[in-house]
């Protein structure tokens, strides 16, 4: 691999890594507060992609304008899933909750399959198609924008969790559910908001990726595994770990893509996963919030 290719892949990987970071933050946030691994996170991301896709294809709405739309829509859907289904099993054994989110994933994914067909679709946005040249290196516009929006979302979320009353209530619930309830925090409502927030972040990640990759109903499937690898790498429930983990996975994936041909580079993520399981099963930063 030449130095040029190395640095070019590094740039590409880092930019994609930003999106992985926020995906992972969404997953880890839900886990941290409710102890749920949301299997449907990838499927929710896929729905966000289709909101942006259809908004662009049918109404010509720019992908970045439909971003708030897909975030709000998925926030509502997420809160409804929590209220309608998950709330009833919050005290059930872990594997039952896991099965429920697995069931939700199957329903969303396959409904999308029936409605939108398994075809791969992509959008071409005129003003995004040109690339930016930085010396010898090329940066694609949608990736750069996605990176900046992801970073802003991550920062905004950090500020929200640290400073706002609601954010403090969410962290309080994550630390000690009963204690939080005792001081008057309505834990049910916190759960709706957390799950909605997780879904909205997934939707933002999905919308940001729509101009970059081809989308299909089953795309969430690969992303949930990737996201889970990121989350495990950063330590379950660790928001900062998820952020750094996303960047690491993004870069490794891009470097592997440059080094190997075919779809074999898909394996790199899993190899990393197995290595983490062998050497640092609690993640590089350890668990906790």
């Amino acid at each position, binding site marked *: 691999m030449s130095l040029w290719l190395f640095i070019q892949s590094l740039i590409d990987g880092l930019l994609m890594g930003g999106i992985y970071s926020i995906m992972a933050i969404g997953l880890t946030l839900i886990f941290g507060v409710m102890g749920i691994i949301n299997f449907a996170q990838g499927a929710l991301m896929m729905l966000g992609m289709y909101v942006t896709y259809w908004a662009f294809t049918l109404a010509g709405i720019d992908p970045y304008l439909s971003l708030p739309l897909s975030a709000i829509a998925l926030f509502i859907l997420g809160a409804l899933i929590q209220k309608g289904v998950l709330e009833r099993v919050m005290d059930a054994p872990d594997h039952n909750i896991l099965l*429920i989110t697995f069931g939700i994933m199957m329903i969303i994914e396959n409904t999308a399959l029936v409605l939108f067909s398994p075809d791969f679709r992509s959008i071409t946005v005129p003003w995004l198609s040109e690339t930016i040249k930085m010396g010898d290196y090329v940066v694609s516009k949608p990736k750069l924008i996605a990176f900046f929006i992801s970073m802003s979302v991550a920062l905004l979320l950090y500020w929200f969790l640290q400073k706002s009353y609601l954010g403090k209530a969410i962290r309080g619930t994550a630390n000690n559910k009963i204690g939080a309830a005792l001081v008057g925090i309505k834990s049910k409502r916190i759960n709706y908001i957390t799950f909605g927030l997780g879904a909205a972040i997934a939707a933002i990640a999905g919308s940001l990726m729509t101009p970059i990759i081809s989308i299909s109903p089953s795309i969430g499937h690969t992303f949930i595994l990737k996201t889970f690898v990121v989350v495990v790498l950063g330590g379950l429930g660790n928001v900062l770990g998820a952020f750094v983990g996303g960047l690491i996975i993004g870069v490794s994936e891009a470097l592997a893509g440059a080094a190997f041909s075919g779809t*074999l580079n898909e394996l790199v993520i899993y190899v990393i996963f197995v290595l983490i399981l062998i050497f640092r099963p609690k993640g590089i930063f350890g668990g906790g919030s």
Partner: protein
Amino acid sequence: MKKKWVLIGLLLVFLFTFPLYSTNYLLHIGIITLMFAFASQAWNIISGYSGQFSFGHAAFFGVGAYTSTVLLVEYNVNPWIGMFIGAIIAAAIAFVLGFLTFRYKLKGAYFSLTTLAFAEILRVFVKNTDFFRKTMGIMIPLDINPFWYQFQTRVGYYYTILILTIIITVIVYLISRSRLGFNLIAIRENEDAAQSLGVRTFKNKMIAITLSGGLTAFAGTFYAQYLLFVKPETVFASDISVSILMPAIVGGVGTVAGPIVGSFIVTPLGELTSQMFSNLAGTNLIAYGVIIIIIILFMPEGVVGRYHDWVNRRKKGNKETQEQKESVTS
């Protein structure tokens, strides 16, 4: 107790005479139903009894299908022997998977997602390897001869999978009454407590996953011989993993009869929905998703588990009313 054996006898008579009065299509559904009952029974050992939910049993299924097929096509090894070699390889993979996850007591979601990732690793690997003919898959040349695991009609396949399912059910029954079975249930209910009482949790879980993985491979070989075709996107697909875990969940995890009862409820349902909407892929999986949620919300112990509860409660109720009567008369 006696009633149970009569019920089992009647079920066996029904299953053995089924080909006499069924149509060819019904027989196909019967075969698929028994095949997933078999695989779900294997899944039951690690996931039902010890509570480690695998979402990636397609890994072992696919290994079974590919091993016997490659051995047959490339080296002319009889599939009846190939299926045992497939089982050994699947058991070895299960052993590695178990070692990686159980060593640090990774459980719950960690374990489930690791199994899912393992199935995915194998799928991507097979899909990219020339030796396995990549995405094209491998055809098994037609050579109708029971000696080579190929039958003239579906009846032969039906009896093969029926006998396999009876064997695995007996195995699971024996496990459930053995020390291993009790240990696994103890691990499921409270792993730390089990360990402090002297149950060697790591060892028991390793035995369970190795057995489970190895046995699942037999269903894979059967599937390959039934369709005479294997492809990474069919045998390693997550649809297979779902079809394997569904019967046990619906029927009742950690019960001997659960996977069988569950498969008879859910597999024909899945087949029929995908048959009814044959131009739309995925409808059977929507149905499965809805069923999972309904079962977990309203009947997490499954159909057989609910039946056991009902019988127990009735027994207790009878005793209480009897005692009441006695106390009244005395």
